[in-house]
């Protein structure tokens, strides 16, 4: 299980990578592992949408479950991963890279303080068993 140290994490198993005032969002290695083979993804936000922390931004469906992806941070959507719906399986193979979902221009960077770092998230995952 991979927990990159340059990311911030939520307890719902999303990650955000912040570069300047842009945050990139996806789901974690643990999340894809729990879902197993992902067969479908639908991104529910569009470029230009103003969204809040906790809003649902995507739906991910595997052979055994469907899950919502919630935004770790608030902001304005500046990009969505258009290629992802055609290749949902890359969420399984590259959850922190090619399988990013949404890029946001952060409206409240202080929200990042409420998220977990890699060590805290890893501990949270391990405590789930």
């Amino acid at each position: 299980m991979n927990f990159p140290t340059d990311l911030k994490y939520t307890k719902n198993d999303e990650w955000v990578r912040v570069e300047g005032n842009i945050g990139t969002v996806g789901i974690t290695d643990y999340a894809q592992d729990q879902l197993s083979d992902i067969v479908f993804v639908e991104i529910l936000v569009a470029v230009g949408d103003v969204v809040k922390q906790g809003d649902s931004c995507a739906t991910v469906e595997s052979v055994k479950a469907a899950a919502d992806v919630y935004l770790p941070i608030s902001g304005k959507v500046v990009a969505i991963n258009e290629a992802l719906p055609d290749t949902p399986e890359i969420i399984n193979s590259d959850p922190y890279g090619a399988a990013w979902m949404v890029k946001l221009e952060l409206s409240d960077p202080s929200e990042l303080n409420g998220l977990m770092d890699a060590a805290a998230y890893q501990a949270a995952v391990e405590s789930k068993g």
Partner: protein
Amino acid sequence: MYLPHTPAEREAMLKTIGVKSVADLFQDVPAAHRFPDLNLPPGMTEMEALSEMQELAFANSHTAEMVCFLGAGAYNHYVPAAVDAILRRGEFYTAYTPYQPELSQGTLQAIYDYQSLIVALTGMEVSNASHYDGATAVAEAVSMAHANFRGKRNQIVLSPALHPHYRQTVHTYHPGKSLIFLGEDIPAKAGPEALLPLLSENTALVVVQYPDFFGRLYDYTSLAQAVHNVGALLAVSINPIALGLFKAPGEFGADIVTGEGQPLGIPLSFGGPYLGIFATRKEYVRKMAGRLVGETVDNRGQRAYVLTLTAREQHIRREKATSNICTNQGLMALASAVYLSLLGKQGLRQVAELCYHKAHYAARNIAKVRGYKLWSTAPFFNEFVVRCPRPVEEINAHLLDHGILGGYDLGQDYPELKNHMLIAVTEVNSKQEIDFLVRVLKEVRHD
């Protein structure tokens, strides 16, 4: 009363769960309500019960002993004997898709065949395992369109020529103010072009019927284009027999096709069970409600059937699912699959042609009777509206005296159609029966 467990077995079960008596299991129910006086008649023997039920059954009239010209959504077609023979096989004789589905390969194959036949018939890309009936299938189409636009479009346009019961069911499924329904107050006589001014970027779905409730046939190609121009979806509620003869809705751009499957080998009965047809395009499959059977290969490379895309369904997606109903009419879907397989493409066309020609013969001859007039000049399939010289109720009472089940009284649903009767003709109506109807209608005029 037949109880399968012996007293010893019951004793053992009680002991296992640590309860003294069966009565103790009900202690959560307040004592005063535990064994209420039900005021029931004394028990009957099987022989007595059968005799009473037969007496009730004989009080009814049925289409086998009458001449039937009543349709309005349910039609008196001939059901080949093989349909019932196959339905009654123990392996199939359940209304439900099994909860351990892959164990029942035969049931899944039957549903898969049904889905394949519906896809071919409607010109769509995917069909679910069916809904309860034509009315609930329309209501599911509304849910699906609403879910497809994630609630961002909240207007639903319902044609006034969509079956009034279907529209009522849609309103029952979707109470409250989250959806706005338009179109139902348009005059019944208007064609589909009357729906165009209602379209906007808030339109999620437009629902029309084909043939419409009054039997009229319209090519919805230009309506479909207009609906798609505003980014909305078009649902078409069909009579499946008509598709044996006329263009499939898939060809004129429908996004969803629903329909009442009863004409496909299912007998007429009050309250059903009937069959809700639901088909759509592949791009909407994840928003479609209901069960879906797919074909695959097992670990030995053999053909096998599975329930597929189940993550759409409410037991996995919970409150975010398009619908909380996944029940299908498994047995009725099987009946229609057997019916369609027996008839084949040519046979279905033949049934449709017989309906069409007999209905047109009836319409021509009724229109010749003084006092009766055809309401519409639009092309029609097997059903048409006649303006009558007297109240429909009165005419139907007279017809009934002659053993004829008359047409549907449209004044019940459309005030402007007082004294208008909707008459259905199918392949089972002989020329003699039609001539008899015309003769009796002539009599009524003189009453």
